[in-house]
């Protein structure tokens, strides 16, 4: 029964949610809303589980003095600091410290990390975009055209490059992306069916 009950719950809810999508009746909608509430509640438990897991991993690192354990102290201070400053008794989201940590620590840190990408992309482009084969040449030319489409100083040539860039985005890019998206979609349907029918059971663990 330890395995049968979860399998039965997954089968019934999976089939119900699939059928419910096609039933525009108020009862169906009511049950759907009810299930949505449950999903939110379960999601909140997942959040708590995530925080607990993070704290455990970080404290273990500090206890065992593993590589770069000092960063775990910063991570824990950041987590609990923001929880304390953002909690109601210290002014909540409007508190001075919460706002300042967000505006002057989190925003610049995120922006810096993202900005660094530009430098690494430039370095990667210098090394990777080499016309050493026919396919690599196609990739190189596509990259050059897409980068040049921004350039307003190319005069009438810029118009042609702009059109070529639109063609690359709307024809070969579109075809490849569609193939990938449809492939992923079919894969998701197949996986969902395997879970609903009890063929895929790894989510229940190994017991």
């Amino acid at each position, binding site marked *: 029964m330890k395995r049968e009950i979860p399998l039965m719950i997954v089968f019934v809810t999976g089939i119900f949610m699939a059928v419910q999508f096609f039933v525009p009746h108020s009862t169906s909608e009511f049950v759907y*809303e009810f299930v*949505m509430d449950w999903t939110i509640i379960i*999601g909140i438990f997942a959040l708590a589980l995530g925080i607990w897991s993070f704290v455990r991993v970080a404290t273990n690192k500090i206890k065992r003095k593993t590589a770069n354990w000092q960063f775990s102290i910063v991570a824990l201070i950041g987590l609990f600091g923001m929880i304390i400053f953002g909690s109601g008794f210290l002014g909540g989201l409007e508190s001075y410290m919460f706002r300042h940590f967000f505006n002057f620590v989190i925003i610049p840190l995120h922006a810096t990390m993202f900005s660094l990408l530009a430098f690494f992309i430039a370095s990667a482009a210098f090394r990777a975009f080499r016309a050493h084969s026919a396919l690599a040449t196609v990739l190189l030319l596509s990259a050059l055209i897409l980068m040049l489409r921004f350039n*307003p100083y190319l005069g009438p040539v810029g118009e042609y490059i702009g059109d070529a860039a639109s063609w690359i985005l709307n024809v070969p890019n*579109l075809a490849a*992306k569609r193939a990938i998206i449809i492939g992923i979609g079919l894969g998701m349907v197949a996986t969902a069916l395997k879970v609903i029918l009890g063929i895929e059971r790894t989510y229940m663990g190994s017991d």
Partner: protein
Amino acid sequence: MDFFSKLIGLDRRWVFLVLGAVVVIVLLLEFPTPIRINPEVKSVYDFVEGLEPGSYVHLALDYDPGTLAEMHPMTYAIMEQLLARKIKIIMTSLSPNGPGMAEEAMLNIMDSARILHGREVVYGQDIVFLGYKPYPGIVILSMGQNYRISFPNDYYNTPVDSIPMMQGVINFDNVEGVILITGTSGVDFWIAYANGRYNVRLAVGLTGVMAADYYPYLKSGQIFGLMGGMLGAAEYEKLVNKLGPASEAMRVQVWTHVAIIVFILIGNISYFVSRRKGGLGK
């Protein structure tokens, strides 16, 4: 080792240095950068222009501080256009780090409307910010049923039912469309659930690196407009006739791309010369 072989193995710190120098020099010099408007951006502008004053638009600002430089200019340009057209805005932010920035944008836009245009934008009558809730997929599905399921209160903890502009607004059926500005994969939830399940008209503003991935949805009609990165933001600023940070940043982006192209050309010339000399295996 000859000159071209050395160039192939150029230390990447030289690339970083040149790129950094280009960014700083171009930032210091001021000159205009002409912007060409793409149809996928124009369709977002046309959508807003075609709305009746008093109608509702849902503005979803689902981005993190990391993508702020690209996303904020889009947000400002679109919000200013929406408020100038007297469109009522329902804002949400389904990214954990998003609400602070979304609120900042809203307050700044309300201030600039009052100071620069002499128009009072009243919170609760012209604009409302519902805030953040975790699990975007679930939240989007619930907003399609009723905004109050996920957001019984707004960002400032005011009950949604007591907010004047939310009277009679139940779900996505009451908004003309959703304009989503995001740097996360949460855009997939909006396409699959808001458009797929509830047939909401959806336009997206994405980071430059994400934009190419979403052209299929543009062609299929699942999204009706797409603003890609800094360029998309700069195009929108030009459309609303208010050149701002994105138009400024395009200058840097254009010349940074030129620097990258020069590096690519140097890499390829070095590669072919070295190969001809037998320095590299074919």
